[in-house]
């Protein structure tokens, strides 16, 4: 197991290197540079700016260590993500600021998805082929096919514009240290983005929970538990759900990574200053430092979460062995 984890971690290094290199090449092929404007800046200014941010060096050259690419790799190895050209602030600061918001939104959406998804899936499975099952299956299929900007539009139109229950501008969460203090939250702002982001994973979790529960309920040990005379509640909660959780766990990880690293659509719709929206902004203005930083951040986050999930999977299900 340890060997497996180490091998996976080591494999992440060339993977990350490949991603960085490809992104670097692509990014420098986007038309225009970070300082091209509608009305061009004076050449002397551009030259100074280029020198300031190390853009006067060749992008990639034989003399690797004296190129932008080489410098980026060296800095990155030392944990320095560079500076955002647009704001002149360190990229890591900006990423953390965005992540503080995105991770809150993502975590809430994740909790929402888990509660709704697992409840719905379990109810569906227990009511197999009954009316509740059809409702559950319809929700899980329809929800999985609804991109969040469709859902967002309907949520805003119904709950914010027509009914006026919620606001749509900005994020209502407090700073992380006050996360557990309900009065620090602005629920008028927080509810809609969480729902818009959470419905898709909720639908997905519901679907997997249902399938997994149906399988588990057929097992001999469930029959044994029933034969022992245990109440239906104990059978379901103690014996069935626990075992049905294993497949759910595998999909949870990637979704958690996907949710907390920021969804730029939901963030754009609700004007939430998260990581996802920063990436889109940085591509549009060709903020090289920010583009690279976000890609590195996302790739590492996804790779690490996937690894953690694989390990957890083996912990939960002892039949799984990695070699």
């Amino acid at each position, binding site marked *: 197991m340890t060997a497996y984890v180490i091998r996976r971690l080591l494999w992440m290094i060339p*993977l990350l290197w*490949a*991603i960085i290199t*490809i*992104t670097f090449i*692509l*990014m420098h*092929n*986007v*038309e225009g540079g970070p300082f091209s404007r509608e009305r061009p800046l004076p050449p002397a200014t551009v030259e100074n700016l280029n020198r300031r941010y190390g853009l006067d060096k060749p992008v990639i050259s034989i003399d690797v260590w004296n190129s932008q690419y080489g410098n980026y790799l060296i800095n990155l190895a030392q944990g320095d993500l560079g500076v955002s050209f647009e704001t002149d602030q360190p990229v890591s600061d900006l990423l953390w600021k965005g992540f503080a918001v995105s991770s809150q939104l993502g975590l809430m959406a994740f909790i929402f998805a888990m509660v709704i998804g697992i409840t719905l899936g379990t109810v569906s499975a227990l009511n197999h082929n009954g009316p509740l099952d059809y409702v559950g299956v319809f929700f899980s*299929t*329809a929800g*999985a*096919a*609804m*991109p969040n*900007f*469709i859902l967002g*539009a*309907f949520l*805003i*139109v119904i709950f914010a*514009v027509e009914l006026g229950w919620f606001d749509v501008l900005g994020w209502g969460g407090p700073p992380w240290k006050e996360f557990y203090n309900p009065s620090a939250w602005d629920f008028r702002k927080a509810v809609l983005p969480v729902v818009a982001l959470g419905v898709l994973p909720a639908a997905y979790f519901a679907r997997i929970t249902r399938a997994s529960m149906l399988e588990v309920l057929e097992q001999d040990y469930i029959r044994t538990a029933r034969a022992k005379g245990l109440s239906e509640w104990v059978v379901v909660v103690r014996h069935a759900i626990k075992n049905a959780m294993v497949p759910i766990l595998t999909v949870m990880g990637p979704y958690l990574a996907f949710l907390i*690293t920021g969804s*730029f*659509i939901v963030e*754009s*719709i609700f004007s939430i200053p998260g990581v996802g929206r920063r*990436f*889109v902004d940085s*591509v*549009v203005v060709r903020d090289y430092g920010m*583009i690279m930083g*976000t*890609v590195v951040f*996302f*790739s590492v986050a*996804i*790779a690490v979460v996937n690894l953690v999930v694989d390990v957890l999977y083996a912990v939960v299900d002892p039949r799984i062995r990695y070699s």
Partner: protein
Amino acid sequence: MAQAQAIEQLDFEGVAARRERGLWSDAARRLTKNRLAVVALILLVAVATLAIAGNYVDAVQRYDPSAQDYDHLREGPTWDHFFGTDNLGRDNWSRVLQGLLISLEVGFGVQIFVLAIGLFVGGTAALGGRLLDNIMMRITDIAYAFPDLLFIILLRSVFQHRDLPLVGGRTQELLLMIFAIGFVAWVTIARLVRGQMLALKERDFVIAARAMGASQWQIVYKHMLPNTLGPVIVAIVFGIPLAIFAEAVLGFVGIGLQPPTASLGVLISNGYRYIQGDIWMVIFPTSTLAVLMLCFTFLGDGLRDALDPRQR
């Protein structure tokens, strides 16, 4: 008791009759039994017909999608403008139809691109020996590790304002869009094809075919490809809504097709701008996109159930 019932329910005659049908007619029969999938398929054909007619038949299109009319700004639905007008007085009906056709073209176009690369990479990995397998799978790993939408956005910005050899105009715009979206999407197909072919290689009927002296090409073409196709088709159908969604996202964040061409994403993002005062501009394109995605998903579900006999 339960067992006796189960045996009674087994339709032996049906089983015997089914043997004579091929894989595909069997699957088609099962698909037509799935009401939701059939409805989705009919709806899709209707929508596609409408989209094509709406772009080439003036009577359906009714207005030029980019003609501005400053006397009718941001109007709700009327008999003159079925879907209302936008902030420049353009007719939303014709614009939604234009966007619909683009969505469909991108959806299918991406799948053709993805299928070509996926089959090639997956097939080479499964059949080309260890070294090729290793190389192909490492490439797949890298493509898989990329954050999808980030990469699509980046690629799209690289491709913007670029020229392709041979084709120009609208085709070129669409092709560049398809390349950007398809560049990471092939991974699923490649993995699927490889896994499927590796498993098939060890199956008895392939070994039997080899023992009877069938050539490698014959085995691949006659025995392995048809058996790989089922799951691949399902993945392709599920891939269509994803590609449509990706295109809408690009339009939504402002790096879609060149204006004034309207894709659904562009319409939606424009609609969001006026959502507080005027809900119609966002409702129609989002509903259209929702119908499109739902239909493809239901159809995909139906196909999966029809093509995978083990799930019955």
